[in-house]
């Protein structure tokens, strides 16, 4: 690591960190627009609360587990409670900033899972889940790939900004959660339509903005690699959006807005592991290719009993796996010397390494998630009963409505008497 702090790298990482933090509220709107109005706040809160409950455990323990230097499997406790995390240089930026930047990744990864269990999981158990999950599942996997001497990193796995660590990981957890928590009572019985598609588009737009910090910032410097990752983060979703729209048009003759928002996110997911390793034209290829499996996975999922309500698996899981594998195909030392060459450049082995990283992540994440949910289920009821579900989570979990008119709402007496 370079010893000195570099001003422009610091400037860029300050911005990148802010952008990634903003992605979690953005995700709330992307998700919140697709649920029913009676569950809008609950869905938003599943993202917003991750800022608090994942953020705090990350500061206390998570960062150390992920970026400590104990072993190839776990970072250990050296940084617990931010011990030794100061203004010293970590790479070319202040250590505190590196910590903050990584924290924003932990937060949004946990929030991503919520898409699989919206409209039915009780809020208290959810909070416990994401906090534990970020420590027990996310932090170790982050260590494996990005941590000092993490075994997947050592193996040569290429994951520029978190295709496996963030997206495949969250998707595996989402799949398990959807199965263990179970389907919504109305799933496949009644039509469940998005309450506010503009919110979903707003979320997609802001996610894209934030993703520039997510991928571009992962260069940890304001240099050519950052510029490459950035440009690819622009081009891949562009390609996915075009292909997705064409698929929509060929299928139903109508280019849907929910589809456009989904396509953008799928493209962003797919380029995440590759962003700083591949050429811009390769980014376009990755974005275009990634549209197909996710598009059809999404159609298929809806015909099954699996109520992965907002399709975390189809979008982040399938998209992340495709992206991680294609990284092993398109990666090129010519574009990033500190990266690697992919199958296309004579290094077929890379594909294998990528596959190992994916499988390890899937296996550990699924198992860990299963255990966590089951343990929580021992101490608390994880899902609402049908009556509460019918009334909506906003009222039953938060005692609020997203859009109140105030009609027929009477101030409680004690309240009135006070004045």
């Amino acid at each position, binding site marked *: 690591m370079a010893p000195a702090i570099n001003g422009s790298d610091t400037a860029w990482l300050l911005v990148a960190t802010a952008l990634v933090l903003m992605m979690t509220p953005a995700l709330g709107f992307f998700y919140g627009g697709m649920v029913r109005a009676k569950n809008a706040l609950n869905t938003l809160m599943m993202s917003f609360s991750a800022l608090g409950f994942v953020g705090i455990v990350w500061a206390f323990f998570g960062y150390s587990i992920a970026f400590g230097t104990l072993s190839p499997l776990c970072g250990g406790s050296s940084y617990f409670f931010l011990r030794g995390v100061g203004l010293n240089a970590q790479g070319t930026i202040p250590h505190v900033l590196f910590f903050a930047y990584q924290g924003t990744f932990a937060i949004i990864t946990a929030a991503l899972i919520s898409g699989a269990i919206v409209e039915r999981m009780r809020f208290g158990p959810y909070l416990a889940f994401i906090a534990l999950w970020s420590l027990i599942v996310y932090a170790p996997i982050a260590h494996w790939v990005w941590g000092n001497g993490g075994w997947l990193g050592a193996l040569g796995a290429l994951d520029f900004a978190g295709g496996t660590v963030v997206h495949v990981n969250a998707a595996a957890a989402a799949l398990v959660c959807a199965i263990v928590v179970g389907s919504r009572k109305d799933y496949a019985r009644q039509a469940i*339509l998005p309450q506010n598609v503009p919110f979903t588009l707003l979320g997609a737009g802001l996610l894209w903005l934030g993703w520039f910090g997510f991928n571009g910032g992962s260069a940890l410097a304001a240099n050519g690699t950052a510029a490459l990752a950035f440009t690819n983060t622009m081009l891949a979703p562009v390609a996915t959006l075009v292909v997705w729209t064409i698929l929509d048009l060929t299928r139903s003759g109508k280019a849907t807005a929910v589809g456009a928002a989904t396509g953008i996110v799928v493209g962003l997911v797919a380029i995440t592991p590759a962003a700083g390793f591949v050429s811009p034209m390769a980014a376009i290829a990755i974005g275009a290719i990634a549209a197909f499996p996710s598009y059809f996975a*999404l159609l298929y999922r809806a015909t099954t009993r699996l109520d992965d309500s907002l399709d975390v698996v189809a979008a982040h899981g399938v998209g992340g796996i495709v992206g991680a594998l294609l990284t092993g195909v398109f990666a090129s030392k010519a574009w990033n010397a500190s990266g690697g060459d992919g199958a296309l450049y004579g290094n077929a082995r890379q594909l294998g390494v990528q596959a190992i990283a994916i499988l390890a992540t899937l296996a550990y994440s699924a198992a860990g998630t299963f255990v966590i949910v089951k343990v929580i289920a021992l101490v608390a009821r994880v899902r609402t009963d049908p009556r509460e579900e019918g009334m909506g989570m906003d009222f039953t979990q938060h005692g609020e409505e997203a859009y109140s008119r105030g009609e027929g709402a009477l101030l409680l007496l004690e309240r009135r008497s006070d004045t």
Partner: protein
Amino acid sequence: MKLVVAVIRPDRLSYVLEELFRARVAGLTISRVQGHGGETERVETYRGTTVKMELSDKVRIEIGVSDHFVEPTVNAIVSGARTGDVGDGKIFVLPVDRVVRIRTGEEDRAAVTPVGVPAD
């Protein structure tokens, strides 16, 4: 006294209002409703979910009138709302026992004659 209840197309409302005002009907209440009838159904798709929309947006008009006013009121609505395509809507005329104007307590006929309203 009668209560004339009409269900019409939203985009005909302004025409119907004009006709009603021209017919000197100055008091009415409307609400946004959805209707099902002979209209061709609409299919919408959200990701994997495809749904058939059984209902289309309509506007419901409610007008309390004295008996001799029913005919002109119905005619005004029909001439303002008719397009000739399926989905133009319906008019129901209901008997009313009693009408009260809240502001004054006036009853029946007096109750439905708004104050100083030039009928357009």
